């Protein structure tokens, strides 16, 4: 079946496009904008946390009276910022960037396909994402403000919350739909549209990571969809799925029949949200694997164990969710089961990390900017993963649950973890997508300051959590033990503002390098995978001739070969 394209107008080519590369870039830009917005929310929160009760500089005067009192943040606004920061970063930032942008752009290229299996469905996924994102952002303008019950929207609090929560539920339905449609597209594309000779075990690790991620999205998100529908019914139709009887809020009895269970919300939510965190990390691991392979000039060590670990991880991720619920009054049987599965699931993560680390042995390591980010990913993800240990065991979790230690743990994985992987990917594939090189010096400045400030933000949090400081506190200094740790808060806040400044070289680089004269070659990194077989930038349909694959994805420094890399798509003796 052919899709004939006469000269397309601007709208069909750039706005309503079905080309996976255009859609990938759309996702990328939209996600980066949302990430920046989510970051701005946090920067305001960081002021309140470091200097409680003081007027916020620069923006304090611009915010409405429901948000600030003479420039100083109000608790209601703080809770909104907290809930929306998490929601925006996870669902409107990282997933669309990691899966929607990188997945869409790179996967069809790496498997030698002309496009995704369902290009129009792809466009629909992007549009659903935009609608969901807009609904989320617009909720800030409601009289009661945006959702303010945490990104976790626990019932009953979220059931009683203002209309912003209903917008959150509606926005989630659109965002989930977008991910479901996208997931289906990725699975079918990867299974069906691989080039000749591209067997599963010749796939780049990045493609494997996207395949497993797509399965997680497709099978886990529906639980949150169901939960969102039930919570919407509780809020709008007066049902009591999550409301037990006899509740009294603010002195008056709640007008609901009762008979429901708050824990039901948590089970449904975490059934999605645990696989979701693997959705957040796997594409990043995939990108890091690609960048490391290219820049070590040798095959990845343990490719097969890494792939099996991915599959095992994906499967197990459905069986650990209640480790987020240890403190809810769980009995020993249930907690033992989930502690065991949680301990087991750490093994494949350790395997993948260790394989990537061992891949450095015997290498010839180049250090372009993408490699800096990819290398930094390793210890940063290491810290994030390791700090999951005391949280995964119920007894130490009794002390650390819902403290800053948890915030430090997951941010280490997602911020200097995934986001660094995202930067690695941007710098790495930029020459292919735009035909230009990004400036190395600006890139290095961006990297080093980001690395410094990321640690400046999240390492203090580990200690703050150890000191007993709970999360989601508008003013932690109310507690003596938190006041004693206040120095850590100030360190974190200044590092956060520093991190924002550290992105300026990246933004400059982004726009400046697009306007450069000098063009990049087709395969500037001398890489072996299929995306480098296309013209730069790849045209609609990607490949001039349909590629055929002759070998594995990481045939670098093959003994006896002419060059130190043997691309998958080149027939030569290899």
């Amino acid at each position, binding site marked *: 079946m052919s899709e004939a394209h006469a000269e397309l107008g601007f709208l069909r080519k750039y706005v309503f496009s079905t080309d996976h590369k255009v859609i990938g870039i759309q996702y990328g830009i939209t996600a980066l904008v949302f990430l920046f917005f989510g970051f701005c929310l946090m920067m305001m929160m960081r002021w309140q946390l470091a200097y409680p009760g003081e007027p916020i500089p620069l923006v304090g005067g611009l915010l409405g009276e429901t948000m600030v009192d003479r420039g100083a943040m109000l608790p209601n606004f703080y809770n909104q910022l907290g809930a929306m920061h998490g929601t925006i970063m996870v669902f409107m930032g990282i997933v669309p960037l990691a899966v929607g942008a990188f997945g869409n752009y790179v996967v069809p290229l790496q498997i030698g396909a002309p496009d995704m299996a369902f290009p129009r469905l792809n466009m629909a996924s992007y549009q659903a994402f935009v609608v969901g994102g807009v609904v989320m952002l617009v909720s800030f303008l409601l009289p009661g403000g945006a959702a303010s019950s945490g990104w976790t929207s626990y019932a009953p609090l979220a059931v009683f919350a203002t209309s912003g929560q209903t917008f959150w539920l509606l926005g989630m339905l659109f965002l989930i739909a977008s991910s479901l449609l996208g997931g289906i597209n990725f699975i079918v594309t990867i299974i*069906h549209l691989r080039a000749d000779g591209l067997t599963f075990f010749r796939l780049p690790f990045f493609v494997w990571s996207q395949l497993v991620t797509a399965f997680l999205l*497709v099978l886990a998100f*529906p639980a949150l969809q169901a939960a969102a529908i*039930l919570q919407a019914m509780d809020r709008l139709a007066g049902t009591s799925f999550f409301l037990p009887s006899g509740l009294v809020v603010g002195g008056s009895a709640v007008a609901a029949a009762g008979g429901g269970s708050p824990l039901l919300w948590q089970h449904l939510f975490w059934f999605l949200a645990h696989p979701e965190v693997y959705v957040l990390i796997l594409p990043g691991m995939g990108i890091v694997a690609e960048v490391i392979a290219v820049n070590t000039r040798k095959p990845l060590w343990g490719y097969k164990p890494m792939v099996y670990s991915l599959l095992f991880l994906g499967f197990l991720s459905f069986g650990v969710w209640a480790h987020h619920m240890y403190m809810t009054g769980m009995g020993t049987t249930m907690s033992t089961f989930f502690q065991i599965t949680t301990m087991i699931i750490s093994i494949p993560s350790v395997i993948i990390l260790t394989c990537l680390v061992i891949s450095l042995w015997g290498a010839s390591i180049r250090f372009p900017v993408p490699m800096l980010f990819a290398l930094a990913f390793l210890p940063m993800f290491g810290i994030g993963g390791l700090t999951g240990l005391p949280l995964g065991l119920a007894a130490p979790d009794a002390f650390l649950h819902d403290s800053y230690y948890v915030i430090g743990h997951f941010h280490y994985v997602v911020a200097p973890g995934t986001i660094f992987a995202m930067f690695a990917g941007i710098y790495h594939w930029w020459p292919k997508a735009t035909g230009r090189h990004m400036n190395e010096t600006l890139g290095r400045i961006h990297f080093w300051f980001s690395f410094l400030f990321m640690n400046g933000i999240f390492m203090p949090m580990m200690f703050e959590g150890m000191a007993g400081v709970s999360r989601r506190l508008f003013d932690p200094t109310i507690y003596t033990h938190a006041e004693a740790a206040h120095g850590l808060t100030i360190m974190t806040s200044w590092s956060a503002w520093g991190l924002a400044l550290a992105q300026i070289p990246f933004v400059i680089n982004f726009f400046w390098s697009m306007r450069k004269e000098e063009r990049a070659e087709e395969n500037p990194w001398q890489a072996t995978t299929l995306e480098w077989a296309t013209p730069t930038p790849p045209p609609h349909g990607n490949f001039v001739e349909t590629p055929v694959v002759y070998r594995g994805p990481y045939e670098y420094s093959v003994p006896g070969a002419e060059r130190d890399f043997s691309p998958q798509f080149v027939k030569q003796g290899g």
Partner: protein
Amino acid sequence: MSSTIVIPYQAEAHPLTGVTSGKLGIWIFLASEIMLFGALFSSYVLLRVGTGAEYWPSGVEAGLNVPIGTVNTLILITSSVTMVMSWASLKMDKFAAFKFYLGATIGLGSLFLVVKGFEYSAKFSHHIYPAVGWPEATDPSTFFGLYFTLTGLHALHILLGVLVNLWLLVYGAELWKTERVRFEGRIEISGLYWHFVDLVWIFLFPVLYLL
């Protein structure tokens, strides 16, 4: 920029999976739907077993009409049969029969919705809404919340199926002439979706009406 791109396996089966991309796609979609309805059924179980609901009515005790539910079940099962018949007619090149059977499927699906509509309005006229706890007790059950939510979501799925089939019926002739194999594939895919929605009802009916 003008170019033609050919995306393979839209009309021919892939050697590894043995199906077209569209068919693989709908199976994956149905897997996600199983998770969706599965989450709702699990919620039913947790709420029925896990909370201290003083009294959980059976469907009959709650006032659900088993004969009507049975009729609806038969309507849907028949509609699945007509759906298969419409696809088979297409494959046998009998376009008129195809239109008849697809029309019957649409009609039966709509009939299901009409019957559902009557059931709902009967409930509402007796002041039975999703928010009603059963009975007036210190620990009421969420039976009606579950009933309306589960059947409501299912009805939305039926409606969607009806609309898609309607579209296929209306634009069918055009597509059948120009892209025959793909059109047959679309009917098959729509059929798979329709059978799934039927299957969900076959679980819903006993769980809500009979248990």
